[in-house]
C-alpha cells in the first residue's frame, strides 16, 4: 500500500493527485497552497477559453484556469463536486479547476518515466512524466510552467 506522506526523503517527492476526464494527474505538492470547493467565478473579458475567470480568495483576486480545457478535454461545466487547487506559480497565485482531488501520494523519482514519443496530442506538452502506481493506475505529472503561460488580455 501507499506510504504516508514523508518529507525530505531523497529520491522521493509528494504530489497532489486529481482527476480530469477520468484520467489521473498530479502536481508537485510544494506548489499547492490549498484546495477549496468550486465557487462561481467572475468572467474575464477577452480571456483565453481555458481561463474560467477570477475568484475571491480572502480578499485577493485569483485567476482560475480550467485544466480540462487547457489539456484539450473540453470546457468544464463546474459543479459542487469540482475543486480549485490554489497553487503558486512564478510569484502569482492561480487556481486550477479539477474534477476532484484523489489523494496526496509519495512517489519515488525512480518511478517517473518519460512521456512516450507516440503521444502527440495537446496534453503532451503539459506533461513532464508518467508514474505507474502499485495498483496499476498511471499518474501524469503536470508542468505548471507549460500549463500557465504569461496570462494576460494581450494573448486573447
Amino acid at each position, binding site marked *: 500500500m501507499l506510504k504516508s506522506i514523508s518529507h525530505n526523503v531523497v529520491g522521493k517527492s509528494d504530489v497532489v493527485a486529481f482527476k480530469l476526464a477520468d484520467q489521473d494527474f498530479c502536481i508537485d505538492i510544494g506548489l499547492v497552497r490549498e484546495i477549496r470547493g468550486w465557487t462561481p*467565478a*467572475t468572467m474575464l473579458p477577452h480571456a483565453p477559453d481555458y481561463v474560467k475567470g*477570477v475568484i*475571491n480568495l480572502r480578499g*485577493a483576486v*485569483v485567476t482560475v484556469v480550467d485544466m480540462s480545457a487547457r489539456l484539450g478535454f473540453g470546457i468544464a461545466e463546474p459543479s459542487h463536486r469540482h475543486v480549485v487547487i490554489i497553487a503558486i506559480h512564478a510569484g502569482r497565485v492561480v487556481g486550477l479547476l479539477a474534477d476532484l482531488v484523489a489523494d496526496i501520494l509519495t512517489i519515488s523519482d525512480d518511478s517517473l518515466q518519460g512521456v512516450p514519443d507516440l503521444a502527440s496530442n495537446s496534453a503532451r506538452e503539459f506533461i513532464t512524466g508518467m508514474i505507474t502506481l502499485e495498483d496499476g493506475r498511471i499518474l501524469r505529472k503536470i508542468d505548471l510552467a507549460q500549463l500557465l503561460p504569461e*496570462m494576460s*488580455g*494581450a494573448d486573447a
Partner: protein
Amino acid sequence: MENLDEFREMFFVECDELLEVLAGGLRQMEAADLEKEIVHSVFRAVHSIKGGAAAFGLSDLVTFAHRFETVLDLIRSDRMEIEAPVMTLLHRCSDGLADLIESARAGLDADRGLTGALLAELDALIDSDGSDEGEPIVFTPITLDFGDVAASPPAAALRIRMSPSADLYRSGNDPVALMTALRKLGPAEVSLLAEEVAPLESWDPDQPGLAWDIRMPSSVTEAQILTVFEFVEDCCRLFIDRLAEVPGPALSLAPLADFLAVPAPDAAPPMAPLPPPGPARIDPAPVQLAPQTPATPDPEPADPIPAVPGLRVASSAPEAAAAPAPTIRVGLERVDRLMNMIGELVIKEAMLSQTIQTAGLQDAPDVVAGLDSIRQLAGEIQESVMAIRAQPLKLVFQRMHRILREAADATGKPVRLITLGEQTEVDKTMIERLVDPLTHMIRNSVDHGLEDSVTRQRRGKPAEGVITLSAAHRSGRVQIEVSDDGGGIDRPRVRQIAEERGLVAPGTPLSAAEIDQLLFLPGFSCKDQVSALSGRGVGLDVVRREIMSLGGRVMIHSVEGEGTTFSIALPLTLAVLEGMLIQLGDQTMVLPITAVQETLQPNRAMLHGMGAGTQLLSSRGELIPIVDLCSVFGLPAIEPLESAVLIVVETDTRQRAAFRVDSIFDQRQVVIKSLEQNYGRVPGVSAATILGDGQIALIIDPEEIVLSLSNDQGRLMAAMAANG
C-alpha cells in the same frame, strides 16, 4: 554590526531631510530680504551632514561638505557677499552633495570628476576671499548662535542640577557625554556637588554618588536642555532653575565656590536625597523633568550619530521656535497592512449589509442604525489612514528645482520655476511615482515648450522663461499643472511630423485637441534635432502611461504664442473609488462615478441609427454614440435597446459616449484590487473589486473604451495602451 547598518540607514534618511532644508534654504537665500536664520539653517544642514558622514567614515562626503560649509560660514559671518554666481555655485554644490550622498548610500565611489570641479570652484571662492584655506578637515563641534531661538526677554542664567541614578550608568549612558552635549548649546560651567557625596562608611558600591551643578548662559532655553536629557529622563534626576538675575562673571563664581574643587573620592558613596532648593536666590519653583517627552524639537541636530530610534521629533523647520506637533516615524508596510485591513473591513461591511437584506432585517431600526454607525466608522478610519499616507507634494516639487536648473543649463535657456500649492497632499505611493513623469514634463517644457531667449525677446516677452508647477485639490481629485509661457504647440508642425512618421494618415481631419493628443503617441518626438535632454522620443507617452497607471489622466491646453499647460488629474487614493454598480447580462461591474455625466432611460425618439450597427443618442441637441458594453466585453447583447439603461460618460478629452447596460442597482465605495498582480491587463478594465456577496466585480475603464471605439486617433491610443 547590524546596529551600525541601522544607524547608517537612519543617517541617510536624515540626510534626505537635511538636503531638503538645504535646497529650500538656498532658494530662500535668493530672496531680497534675507533673514540670517535661513543662512544658519543652511549651514546647520551641511554641518550635520558632514558630522554624520564623518561618523561613518565617508571621507569624500566629509571633504566636500567641509568646503561647502566653509563658504557658507563666510556668508554667515558676512565675509562674503551673496552674488548671483555664488548662489549658482551653492545650488550646484547642493546638487553635488545630494549626488555624493546618493552614491554613498549605494556604496559606490563618487564621481570625483564632478565633485572635483565643484571643489575647485569652492576653493577658488574661498581663496578669493583670502581666508580659511587649508584648514585641516576634522569634525569639530561648532558652537552655534541661538540668539534667535532663545527665549527673547533678557532671561536669567540657568542652573541645572543633575543627579544620575544607577540606571543611567547601567544603560551605558555617560554624564560626560551629556555635559558635552550641553556645552554645544553654550559655555557650561560644571561643578561637582561635593556635599552630595556620602561619607565612606555608608557607601553602597552599587549606587552612584556624584551629582553636578551646571551653569548655562541665559541664552539657552530649558527646552533645549530637556532635549539633551531626553533619552535619560527616567534615570537621571534633574532640576533646572533660572536664576533671578544675571550675575556678572565674578559674582557667579562666588556661590559656586562652596561646591568647587573637591576631587571625586575613589569610592563613591550612595546618593543622598536631593538637597533642598539651594541658596535663596534660586527660583523656588524647580523644573522637574516630566516623564512625557517634551514636544520641543531639537533645533540643532549637531549629534554626529543620528538620534536613537523611537519617538522622533521633527527638526527640519527653520521656524523651530514654534513647537510643531510631535511626529512618529513608522514603516510604510505597517500602514499598508492597516490600509489592506480597512479594505477588508469595507468589504465585510458591505457583506453584512447584504446579509441583513437577505435576512429581511432591513426594516429593523436598531439593526439599520447599528450598520450605519459601523459604516460611518469604517469611513472615518479609512480617511484617517489615508491621511497618514498622505504627503505634501512639496517632496516632489522641491526636486523639480534641480531638474529645471539642469535642463536650463543644458539648453542655455534662462528659466525660472514657480511652484504653487506645494502643501497639497496626495498618497505616498503617488508621490514616488510622480517624480519621473514630472521630471519628463519639466524637461519637455524647458526643451520644447519655451522659445530661446532671442525669439522670446523678438516676441516681446522677457528673456527669462517661466514654468509654473502647481497643485490643488479639485472636486475629489488632485490636479497638478505644468505650464510654460512659451510659444504654444506648433500644430501644423506636429501634424506634419505625425504624418511623416505614419502615425496618422495624411489628410485625416483632426481637431486642435486631437492634434495635441498626437504628442502622447509613442515614438513621437517633435524636436527637429534630437537633444540630449528630452528628444529621445520617449517622454510624453511614458508620462501618459505612468499617470494612467496611477488612475490619472493627462490633458494638454495650449494657446499659440502664450504657452502650453499640461494638467494631470489624479485620484486622491489608489485604494478605493466611488463606483456605480451595473448589471451586464449575468455579470456585475463597477463604473467609476467620476466619469459618469448622466443616466437615462431612452425612448425611441432619442435614438437614431447611423449605418449598420451604430446608434446615436440625441441628448440636449448633441449626438452621442451608443456603446454596447456587452459587446465590448463579449457578452450576449441586450435587446431591445429601449429596455436598457444608458449611462453618458465623458472622457478627459471631452469625448462623450453613452454606455448601454442592463440596469444600475447601486452606488458605493469599492476597494480597488489589482487584476494585474495575478492575471494581467484586460482591455477596458482598470481593476477589480470584491462585492458584498464575496463575488469579484470588474471595474470598467470608460476612458479606454471610448477612446478605442471613437476614431482613428482613438485606435492609436488603444494600440498604445496594448503596447504598454
